[in-house]
């Protein structure tokens, strides 16, 4: 904004206290908004920073600082994150679930988005509607519904635990690639493929060699978003978890937070945080790199609008 450099007209609101003058000055800086924004940012991030710091606490407390140590990460031979077998299994389970979810949700979602964008048959609208519905439905409803599905109708087909969790997560996450890829499809239009086919490409070739490369930033962004969101997921994976070794980190953190958490829980949460952040940063960097070549404004704003 450039108007902050303009000086107020000298005749403006000379009367009254400095407060009224300040209030009436149309060129005043938005101090209150600024304060709210800074306050909000501090409020939203400092608790998390403190939680990360407390994973290095020397004592058992997660609320009183007792000095720095690596005890809860690697030091303690039984209770630290990398030695407690249940936390290690949970960590592996988190990454296993997220990885497989991405492998299912992103290809299916991408194909769905391409098909729905180009196909105007009668079933296309309801199919798209159902897909978007899965995006807004509260996770609680979907989680319990899937739990009832897997414990009743598909009782002997899909056991609770990893299989059910993957199916549930993929269902909940599939709308992300659909929305992200479709947004990109809208902006590139069908012309490139048509040109390719005019030049003799078969439909499959035009998809593989023209459309998919054009879509790659959106697909990579979907991979990042889907992975990060799967790591953070809690409601669905909790309802669909079976034996104790199928509980991922998020469920372990929840159970521990309700009983007697040690800073090892903070360490586990920090691992989740690092995993999602790394994924998002990598996704953003790739997105920016690819989007540049296609004349798309690959700035942070367009990435966050996804």
């Amino acid at each position: 904004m450039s108007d902050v450099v303009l000086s107020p007209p000298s005749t403006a609101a000379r009367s009254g206290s400095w407060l009224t003058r300040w209030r009436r000055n149309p060129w005043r800086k938005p101090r209150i908004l600024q304060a709210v924004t800074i306050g909000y940012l501090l409020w939203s991030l400092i608790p998390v920073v403190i939680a990360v710091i407390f994973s290095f606490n020397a004592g058992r407390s997660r609320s009183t600082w007792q000095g720095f140590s690596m005890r809860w990460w690697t030091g303690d031979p039984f209770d630290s994150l990398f030695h407690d077998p249940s936390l290690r299994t949970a960590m592996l389970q988190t990454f296993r679930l997220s990885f497989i979810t991405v492998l299912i949700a992103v290809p299916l979602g991408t194909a769905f988005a391409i098909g729905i964008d180009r196909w105007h048959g009668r079933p296309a609208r309801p199919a798209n509607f159902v897909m978007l519905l899965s995006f807004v439905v509260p996770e609680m409803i979907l989680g319990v519904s899937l739990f009832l599905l897997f414990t009743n109708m598909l009782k002997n087909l899909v056991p609770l635990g990893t299989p059910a969790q993957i199916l549930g997560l993929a269902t909940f996450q599939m709308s992300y690639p659909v929305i992200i890829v479709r947004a990109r499809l809208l902006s590139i239009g069908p012309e490139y493929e048509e040109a390719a086919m005019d030049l003799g490409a078969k439909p499959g070739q035009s998809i593989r060699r023209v459309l998919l490369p054009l879509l790659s930033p959106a697909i990579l962004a979907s991979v990042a978003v889907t992975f990060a969101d799967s790591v953070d997921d809690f409601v669905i994976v909790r309802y669909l978890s079976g034996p104790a070794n199928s509980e991922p980190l998020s469920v372990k953190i929840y159970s521990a937070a309700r009983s007697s958490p040690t800073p090892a829980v903070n360490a586990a949460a920090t691992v989740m945080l690092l995993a999602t952040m790394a994924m998002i940063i990598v996704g953003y960097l790739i997105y920016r790199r690819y989007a540049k070549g296609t004349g798309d404004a690959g700035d942070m704003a367009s990435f966050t609008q996804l």
Partner: protein
Amino acid sequence: MEATTTPTTEPERKAKHTKSDTASGAWYPRWYWPSFTGPGTIWMIVLFLLPFYTVLAVAFGTVDPLFRTPLPVYQPWWWSFATFQTTLQKFYVAPAVYQPPLIRTFEYVFVASLICLVIGYAVAYYAARYAGKYRIPILVLLVAPFWISYLMRIYAWQSLLQPDGYVNDILMALGLVSQPVLWLSGKGITVVLGLVYGYIPFMILPLFGSLDRINQNLLEAGRDLGASPSQTFRRVTLPLSKPAILAGLVIVSLPMLGDYYTNNLLGSTRTSMYGNLIDGSVGQAGQGPEAGSLVLILMVIVIVPMLYYLRETRRAAENA
């Protein structure tokens, strides 16, 4: 298909097909695009629509008398609405044990959504209009909570609000309280602030997107034509951002209505919400139909805002 009724030459028929199949006029067989949509659609039918049908079958089914497991009834003509009715009556027939959590849920969600809106609007407004050269870092920080697990963020507050936590330390150091406040002993305000904290990023991003798109010239025109800053805000900015406000309110209140973990980590049974009712009955012996009924009631509550949100986002996409 017209091709079977009116004899046409091969190229003509092809042209006809493509016209009805794709708007672009390229050369694809009829099954080509549906085969892209098919797998995702089948997936959604089996794992999104079928579960809802199972909810109906469980809610309107019975319970195994011996094992107390739900016995779902899949044929609608044999559905029994007895459990659903008893569950429903627990909301309004004395002793109405489910009524307080339901009312509490609406109160909490209402207050929390409003706080989200007020704080979120101010932050989004600042980020969109005044951030200047700090725009990118502010955006990054605004988006960051999105990618921090909800659970970790609530867990962080749970630690801070302990009797010996930093919140009490600060309050006592400032002399505002003489002994630690028991924030986690079932205080409504703690749960509401937890909800605000958890869901406010979902409010800020649509608001930011909308405020950022408002054409500066419109605001300057308003000022040129004699409106005061507050008038410009009330009569130009606010109406232009109204769709985003409503979308934001819907998108934060939908998950809040089903939330149970915020209360489980920050509150007690005194602050239990609708989600706690569901969570308490899921997987419990003999309570299958009741859990199904509770989910069903929640679905009825959220379906209107959900459809509204979908319609608005589609409209926004078409206008863009």
